């Protein structure tokens, strides 16, 4: 069923009784050409592009919970491609371009809102680092602007210009960046993949990976054994656990990242604003809630909940940046479990097992990467060849000495 204003009107006139499920609930088949473990944004996007772009249609996505129950359903919805390192920038820009055509491609409104992401700087040194980043973006053909204080005051008048601990001197703006409705991304990809014949199997937990003669033959699941030609892991947050089933040792720690939303408010914050005096980012959803987050809690965890000390710190930073947030009430806090990699960058690669493929380590960057991650992973699975924009994101980069360390923090995951 194609979605359009017309379909809405036609269905409304028949009492909205004729809408069909957005994706099927198939019984698992005994064998698939490709099984993707993880029914989050990346797994679903991978399935969609495999089927649509690479002609691999006998695909299953296995999800242990409900579809989109991982980080695609719990993040701050930011979409951007303002990276500095040559290993990252082309990849995230590829993702940004896919975002820009995603709704038409999927026939699903994911409410991409290119309202601009501005990262504030508070010192000359920070400005220089952002200039370096902005120029790296331009090298890749991505437009960026340096907004100086006076211009910024006109653009975003409510920032703490006069009483801040660290003066707000300006910001680096990417106008094309913005937000997208996170759940809709999962649902849109699910519907798209389903329409191309992919079986999305929810509530099907992978409990083991069966190997014969050094190759994967299928997975044990809570719904029985399912055979496959190729197995693709896209279970960020739990990558180590899934990897363990195939004796993969991964450069990852699982960490909890909290995000928050306020009560619904009339539109007041038009951009995505990133504080440079700490690590805080905020935007307003189309529904009116201010959505914000900051740094991870810092300890390795598989619990989808955070601690109060971190939450309080987040609020301190928020009020420091925007004093007027003080009387706004925070409605809800939640925690996502992320793969923090050893250099803060993701991994899309083959593994030592020929038909086992790995997609993990998304750190803070998973949501914005969804389309490119899916596309590049599908490319790798279908062609056994790394997509050009993902070449720096290989697993062996640590052994070879080519970490993609955007923060320059070294191999301590909780510092990225």
């Amino acid at each position, binding site marked *: 069923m194609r979605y*359009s204003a017309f379909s809405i009107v036609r269905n409304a006139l028949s009492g*909205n009784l004729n809408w*069909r499920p*957005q*994706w099927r609930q198939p019984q698992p088949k005994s064998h698939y050409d490709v099984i993707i473990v993880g029914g989050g944004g990346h797994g679903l996007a991978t399935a969609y592009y495999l089927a649509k772009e690479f002609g691999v249609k006998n695909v299953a996505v296995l999800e242990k919970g*409900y579809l*989109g129950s991982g980080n695609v*359903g719990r993040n701050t919805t930011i979409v951007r491609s303002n990276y500095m390192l*040559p290993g990252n*920038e082309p990849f995230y820009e590829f993702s940004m371009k896919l975002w820009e055509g995603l*709704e*038409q491609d999927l026939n699903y*409104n994911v*409410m*991409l*809102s290119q309202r601009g992401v501005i990262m504030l700087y508070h010192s000359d*040194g920070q400005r*220089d*680092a952002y*200039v*370096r*980043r*902005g*120029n*790296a973006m331009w*090298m890749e*053909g991505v437009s960026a*602007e340096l907004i100086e204080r006076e211009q910024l005051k006109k653009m975003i008048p409510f920032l703490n210009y006069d*009483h801040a*601990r660290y003066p707000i001197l300006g910001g680096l703006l990417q106008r094309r960046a913005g937000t997208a409705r996170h759940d809709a991304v999962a649902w849109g990809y699910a519907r798209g993949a389903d329409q191309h014949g992919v079986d999305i199997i929810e509530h099907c937990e992978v409990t083991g990976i069966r190997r014969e003669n050094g190759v994967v033959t299928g997975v044990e699941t809570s719904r029985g054994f399912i055979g496959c030609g190729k197995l693709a892991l896209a279970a960020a947050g739990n990558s180590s656990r899934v990897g363990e089933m195939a004796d993969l040792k991964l450069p990852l720690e699982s960490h909890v990242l909290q995000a928050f939303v*306020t*009560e619904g408010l*009339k*539109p007041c*914050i038009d951009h995505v604003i990133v504080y440079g*005096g700490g690590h805080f980012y905020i935007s307003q959803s*189309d529904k*009116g809630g201010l959505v914000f987050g900051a740094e991870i809690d810092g300890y390795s965890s598989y*619990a989808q*909940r955070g601690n109060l000390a971190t*939450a*309080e710190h987040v609020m*301190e930073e*928020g009020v*420091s940046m925007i004093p*007027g*947030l*003080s*009387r*706004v*009430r*925070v409605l809800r806090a939640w925690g996502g479990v992320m793969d923090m990699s050893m250099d803060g960058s993701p991994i899309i690669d083959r593994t030592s097992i020929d038909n086992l493929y790995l997609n993990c380590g998304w750190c803070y960057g998973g949501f914005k990467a969804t389309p490119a991650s899916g596309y590049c992973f599908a490319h790798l699975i279908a062609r056994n060849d790394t997509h050009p924009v993902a070449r720096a994101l290989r697993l062996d*980069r640590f052994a*070879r*000495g*080519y*970490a993609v*360390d955007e923060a*320059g923090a*070294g191999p301590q995951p909780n510092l990225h």
Partner: protein
Amino acid sequence: MSAYRLSSGGLVDRSKVLSFTFDGRPLRGLAGDTLASALLANDQLLVGRSFKYHRPRGIVSAGPSEPNALVTLGSGARSDPNTKATVAELYSGLTAKSQNRWPSLGFDVGAVNGLLSPFLGAGFYYKTFMWPRQLWEKLYEPVIRRAAGLGRAVLERDPESYEKSWAFCDLLVVGGGPAGLMAALTAGRAGLRVILADEDFRLGGSLLSETETIDGSPASAFADRVAAELRSLDNVTLLSRTTVFGWYDDNVFGAVERVQKHVAEPSAKLPTERVWRIAAKRALLATGAEERPLVFGGNDRPGVMMGGAIGTYAERYGVSAGKSVAIFTSGSSGYRTARGLAARGMSVSTIVDSRPDAVDAAPDGVRVVRSGSIIDTKGSKRLSGIVVERSGYEELIACDALGMSGGWSPVIHLACQRGGRPVWSEDLKAFAAPDVGGGLRVIGAANGVYTLSGCLRDGAGKAAAIAEELGFHAAEAPLPVIDAEVEPSFAALWYVPGAKSKAFVDFQNDVHAKDLGLALREGFGHVEHAKRYTTSGMATDQGKLSNINAVGILAGMRGVSPAEVGTTTFRPFYTPVSFGALAGTSRDTHATPTRKSPLHEWAKKNGATFVDSGLWFRSAWFPRGGEKTWRESVDREVLNVRANVGICDVSTLGKIEVFGVDAAEFLNRLYCNPMLKLPVGKARYGLMLREDGFVFDDGTVSRLADDHFFVTTTTAMAGAVMSHMEYCAQALWPDLKVRFCSVSDQWAQMAIAGPKARDVLQQLLDEDISETAFPFLSARATALRGGINARLFRISFSGELAFELAVPAGYGEAVADQIMEAGRAHDICAYGVEALNVLRLEKGLLTHAEFDGRVTPDDAGLGRMFSAQKPDFIGKHLSARYGLTAADRMQLVGLKLVDKDKEKDMRAGAHLLKEGMKPSTLNDQGWVSSAGYSPVLGQHIALAFLKSGRERYGEKIVVWDRLRDHEVTAEVCDPVFVGSENTKLKA
């Protein structure tokens, strides 16, 4: 008194009349009112508009679950949007405004959405607004956004203050109703340190609206008596107006106390709100139970309220919710409410009971319709009648208030915030708290105990058990006597069939039963999917009223038990908490602590301009009369250091004493260059790597004795280096005998640099500091004339003859004054970090602009410091990896402008391109790390990282700053601009 205020009764003070306004209209209430009860008393039932369809909405509840009665309190910078009128304590001078309506509450243009509702079903926006693409940003999204939200945040600076406090106790009791009070009393009498937190401004909870008597007197009097005794106990802390919003690991609770939200003129001495972090050995959850609304056609008409709320308004506030009240119930509670109202003299016309065989007793003269359903309601902005259906017959019954009672749900949010899932109880027909261990137990109605005597017994019993566990003894005390009471019963009724108009599940977000049906049809039948697709339960009330019905309806449609559907996840915050309260005092200039150098006042009196450097303030430059720009000052300072002498505050550098017989061995493993044989009395530049081979920090190491070293770090990394040393000593090599002590704060340290530095400094010292007696890289303890202990180092970060002098911090200012005095004849000047930066740039010395965490010693031109001979040091092994040694790595180079025009500059952050090459990530040759004007050379110079840079001296390269539309051509050169390489670190 107004028409809706009962002539007597209630816990309001009829002698204290409070004036307030609603939408500008002056109104009056009584002390003890909430805004909601005062509005009801003034016949202001209509208080808001719903989110999507802008339907007129009235007050529904009498507590924190309120979905409709959201108002903006206050004005300007003191606005509090989305405040629940049902919990807002009335005060004189309160101003409230309704929300989400235009132009007015009575006539709201947005209500047209209601007519379009067939097209605005759940998730409709995912299916449209996609073509043409450009219109989403330009038209569709702005329209959707304009409709977003309810209240308006002004985003002005909040004039009020906030704070936090820690609290520790043996027992935290959450909720001051019958069970909570009894528990606190039992534990308090037994001597436990008890905290009782209650969100209301008056302790008592349901006792305040109770119709039953305790020990023969009104229940509220019992509450007052217990509260008074608790107040008299030193070991009990009563926190009223305090909502416990979260339960965290280790039995730590977050709570917010509204210290001054109920006063018109807050005292400057007190915070507006205070967040408590309460570490409790044990906690009892006494949060009561929530009455369930019924989902029937027209159930959102103003005047349709929770039955218990109508009772509360009558009993506690002396307010009648209507002239003629009807009750719609699926259980005995509706009858109880009716009896209470009748006892207060209110007119109850009808009880519609969904059950066929109920035996509950209705008050005299009240008609009971058994097996009845309400299928529609009448009226516009206030209810005028209900359409009751029974056995196929419909009847219109006039009434102006309807109380609904669909049974009870224990309030168990806190118990489920740490991963425990609610457990469906077939007995309670509700989700109950899971067993979460001994730290938190549930009592009273929250535990499914619905009689008053049961609640008192449950509270006393569990508190006594906890007292015993913690080694206290709770004396047996007789429980209060309650008059005859009936155990309430009800039938679960998730949805009333036959609705003739929309039957709302989530009032605020306008989710009605059909939306859930649509969600299920489209495959969103999982409770989380249904919530996300329809937005049911996502409003500011977080579904406190709606969630259970949504679960029940989904269960019904899916043909399974509610247990199988389950609930969505309970997460903090129980009720919304302000940013300000959670941030506390850390805001504005107090967002982080500030560190001041011992030479801060000295710099200030010498006219310094300060700049932030982490937590520190550092002096940036020292402008003198006639200098119009910072560049003029900095140029003068640089030239003066090169020609004469300058003094610079370097106290902010990290300073660490390293002691122990293994200190030398330890430092030798820590730095990549050799430290083992550093002679006593000597200093050495040191480079520390991370274990992955990249530079971590640089600094100096001075050996003051065989087993005593003095290490300096950069300002930014002082803390990190200290932690790193502690890690290495404790976790890696605990057998090395080495100890550290940070003395960053003990010493004021100043650099005295320039050709005349020795002449100036010698005047303060008896000790000979000539080139022979105190050569380059000397380091030792000394004393100033006059007896001040000092340390003197012959080290330089400027390339000039330079000393660093450290004196006890308190003497810093006096010593710096003396140096200035001694230097006057030599034209000494104070210089700041900007001049320091130019001086080091001219010499090719590096800072964190270069050491950005991705640089190897070799990249930085310091490869010779890497000691391949040493058997082991941090970072050695992984330094050998291919990627760290590849020939095409970016290496540090200098850049000089080809065109020496003074006006042309290079800027840090620019990238490098081969001449004639198109900009692209592939063609990117490197980047400029530091740049500045060298007054010595009379031109702009820069340090940059360039691919294979050291092979490319002499090459012309484009310095490309597209971000600022700036492009110049530079020549690649040796990074040491002034003097040659071998004089880099020497004086």
